[in-house]
């Protein structure tokens, strides 16, 4: 039985309420989803809570999973939503930034690769960003979402997503320069 067949079987078992199957899927994806949550929440302890709540929600809604995307991609979206909810509730930083960005900032051409850095260095620099900038950098460079998807995830317009990304990149560049 190949990986896809095993996944399908596990997901079917989860749909029947099989706790062992849920635990198996948790073990498979916990590390990856923990890192997704940690990059947004920026707190080791809370990232575990957020990640686990995302799994619980995923298993509650597993009946809605149709297999259009991979289970990992579906789960990741739930984890990101859960992380953003945590930041909105406890990070309380969204209010520091305007919901609508003015047009004055020139939008960069889309670079889809991280700025040629070791992952450790990029992640460390990201920690110094505010939650919005940290989130958009993570979604774009690491998770691989495009601006349309980011706009939907962060509940902002397409233009705002691009403008925010430009600002986030400038801020990241400044942090990296200061660290040299």
């Amino acid at each position: 039985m190949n990986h896809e067949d095993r996944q399908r079987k596990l997901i079917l078992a989860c749909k029947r309420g099989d706790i062992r199957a849920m635990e198996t899927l948790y073990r498979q994806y916990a590390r990856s989803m923990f890192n997704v949550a940690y990059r947004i929440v920026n707190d080791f302890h809370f990232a575990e809570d957020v990640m686990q709540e995302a799994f619980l929600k995923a298993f509650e809604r597993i009946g809605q999973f149709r297999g259009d995307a991979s289970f990992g991609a579906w789960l990741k979206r739930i984890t990101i939503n859960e992380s953003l909810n945590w930041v909105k509730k406890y990070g309380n930083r969204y209010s520091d930034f305007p919901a609508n960005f003015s047009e004055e900032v020139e939008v960069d051409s889309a670079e889809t690769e991280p700025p040629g850095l070791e992952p450790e260095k990029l992640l460390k620099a990201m920690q110094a960003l505010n939650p919005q900038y940290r989130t958009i950098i993570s979604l774009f460079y690491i998770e691989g979402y495009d601006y349309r998807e980011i706009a939907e995830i962060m509940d902002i317009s397409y233009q705002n997503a691009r403008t925010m990304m430009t600002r986030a990149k400038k801020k990241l560049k400044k942090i990296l320069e200061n660290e040299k």
Partner: protein
Amino acid sequence: MKNKDSRYDLFSPPEGHEARFSMKLHHRMQSSRPQNLWLRRLTAMGIAASVLLAALFVRWNEFGGGDGLSGQWTQQTAALKQSFIRQWERIEKYDSPESKKIIEDNFRQWEKLQADLEKLQKEFRENNNRAVLNAMLQNLKMQNELLINMHDQLNKIEKQARHEKSVHQS
């Protein structure tokens, strides 16, 4: 969406995360089972309060109150949260008529502590003050002790009931 680069997954979840998840999963899956709603409410509020307090500590540290205590605070609130979860698991099995009175008595004490905690939360919102944060932490510790004591009392009466039953049968 392009494929994610796993080179960025540098960290492992904290030790013991699988066991903690397993416990949460079992609780969530069994939520339809009849349980003592008061205890569920009590422990759930304790867990939520620990999480909230930890978030307040983090914010306090970030917004200029940082005095090197953040690590201690985080550890204490994390330990409290785990303790609330543990008490939840230990206490909720008691639902006999004998245990009901003990639970009700403790619940009244807990309500007082909870009212104090709500006042402290309000006070902290109005004027950020480290002393208030410490008072909130003390309050949560008292709530936790209340649960531990309640478990001890429940355990004692259950043992007593078992003993009386065995004497009666013999």
